[in-house]
């Protein structure tokens, strides 16, 4: 990888009794998307705040566009755009007034500020609300304005803190399209998200953060490989004690069972004839099977494996 445009080394930050960051390192190459993935409170926003010069880390270093965020915050600010998690547009101003204000503050003369605002209003389909105060906007509309606000100066480096949290599927898709376009134009993007599919779809590289620490890093493919391949899901007609024992020789780890004992899950290596072998083994053990599925690895599995957080709505328990 060429010299990264965004790079952090061992960032730590403590707020009172909470260790928000406990040594975060990451890097993003020019024109790529770095996905920062993690549950609520993992330290994603604090990482973004450090990289965008809003928060000083207690230790560690970070460079954005070649400039140290601590030593040269002004130079960093001349090269970044930010869409924070909280709305950072002025609620009393209209969308147009907000964008014009930010364009002027970024150094555009008045006439060009107006043109830039009009351009962004159109690109983000904000024309119909452009002259109404932001206060009355729906969540999706405000999020689009937040993103537009971060792009006013045409920054080469963009930070998006959970850009699609709370958006409906259509708005989400639209946001993804915009990010892809920007990256195609050469923008380097750091994007935080709680959504695995979002990281999977958009990111070239992913770092998974939990409790202020990077617990995994790599391309989506590399991360999926770390969980050791495919995942088996078997649904039984009735719970049966022999089922887990019968599956044992065919899977790579332990067999997890749902609370009613009807659904079994385990990591498997894949391979030809696996489903046949499983049905046969269960049949020999006298177990009736409703459904067998072998899933290719997904980021959900990575996340589950790394954070220990359950990703399914029904709790799984590890069987003996």
């Amino acid at each position, binding site marked *: 990888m060429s*010299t990264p*445009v965004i790079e952090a080394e061992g960032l730590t930050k403590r707020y009172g009794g909470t260790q928000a960051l406990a040594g975060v390192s990451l890097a993003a190459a020019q024109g790529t998307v770095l996905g920062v993935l993690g549950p609520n409170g993992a330290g994603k926003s604090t990482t973004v705040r450090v990289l965008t010069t809003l928060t000083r880390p207690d230790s560690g270093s970070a460079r954005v566009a*070649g400039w140290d965020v601590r030593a*040269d915050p002004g130079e960093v600010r001349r*090269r970044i755009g*930010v869409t924070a998690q909280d709305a950072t547009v002025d609620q009393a101003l209209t969308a147009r007034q907000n964008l014009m204000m930010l364009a*002027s503050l*970024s*150094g555009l003369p008045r006439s060009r500020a107006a043109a830039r605002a009009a351009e962004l209003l159109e690109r983000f389909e904000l024309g119909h609300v452009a002259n109404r105060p932001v206060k009355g906007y729906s969540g999706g509309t405000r999020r689009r304005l937040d993103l537009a606000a971060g792009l006013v100066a045409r920054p*080469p480096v963009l930070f998006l803190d959970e850009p699609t949290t709370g958006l409906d599927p259509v708005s989400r898709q639209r946001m993804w399209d915009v990010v892809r376009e920007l990256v195609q134009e050469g923008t380097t993007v750091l994007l935080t998200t709680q959504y695995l599919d979002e990281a999977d779809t958009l990111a070239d590289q992913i770092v998974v953060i939990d409790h202020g620490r990077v617990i995994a890093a790599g391309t989506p493919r590399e991360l999926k490989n770390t969980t050791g391949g495919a995942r088996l899901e078997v649904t039984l007609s009735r719970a049966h004690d022999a089922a887990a024992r019968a599956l044992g020789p065919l899977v790579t780890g332990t067999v997890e069972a749902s609370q009613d004992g009807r659904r079994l899950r385990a990591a498997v290596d894949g391979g030809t004839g696996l489903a046949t072998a499983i049905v046969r083994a269960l049949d020999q053990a006298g177990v009736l099977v409703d459904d067998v599925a072998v899933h290719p690895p997904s980021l959900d599995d990575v996340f589950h494996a790394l954070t220990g957080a359950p990703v399914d709505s029904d709790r799984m328990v590890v069987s003996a």
Partner: protein
Amino acid sequence: MTSSHSVAVPTSAVGAVDPGNALRRLSREVSVLTHRNLVHVAHEPLQLSDVTIQPIVFSLLFVYVFGSGVTIPGGSYQDFALAGLLALNLTTATSGTAVGLSTDLTTGVIDRFRTLPMWRATVLVARSFTDLLSYLVCLAMVVVTGLAIGWRPKASLGSTVAGLAIPLLFTFALSWMTACIGMVAEGPESAQSLGLVLLFPLAIVSNAMVPTQGMPGWLETIANWNPVSAVTAAARDLLGNPNPSSGLDDWPMQHPLAAALIWSFAIIGICAPLATVLYGRRTRD
């Protein structure tokens, strides 16, 4: 500035337009944010009640309620009261700066500004400019009310203008002090009450509405050294209105104009840098 520039990342396409003239950039930043603050006022005109309605109410209350019991040697109570009403209304109006800044600090907009290549104190200076405009409104309301109830300046035009400018200068200075209050207050409500707890005694324990001669000795000394008294006495002299404090021995009452200027510039000299430091501390975590 040095940087081991290992990656060639250009500045934002737009930000590169005007790297030059720092002063021009600064004045643009301040005017953009001042405009923003004025849009806020236009959205909630009632915010302005403490510089529009309040001056009229205070002026009428003081002149007709308190004024009825006070005799002023060498003139009417109206003539005596006007400079005091200016000082009283303007002093208490400076709580607006504390509230405005505190409100800004509780919204996410400040964070957005901080990710822009802006001068750090722009937010403060723009707030100060906006508020200066509202203090001008306050001054105009007091003058118009005064004229309506019989106050007349008895000096040249130049001297009269100076007599109005001195309270305004002092108010500008004081707004930097209330800016500091806005920065240490938890939120807009506490900024408001903190401001008033300090500003009301400051405005009242003075020669603004009554001659200090009738106060108990210790209180009179405090009142005579109160900057509000110096400002009021200086304004009275410049406006050609009766100034009973001129007979007092305390230095500020002998040299009210010098005292008013010293107080004003001293407050700016201390509070403006302090406000900048507090702003930096409040917006850094």
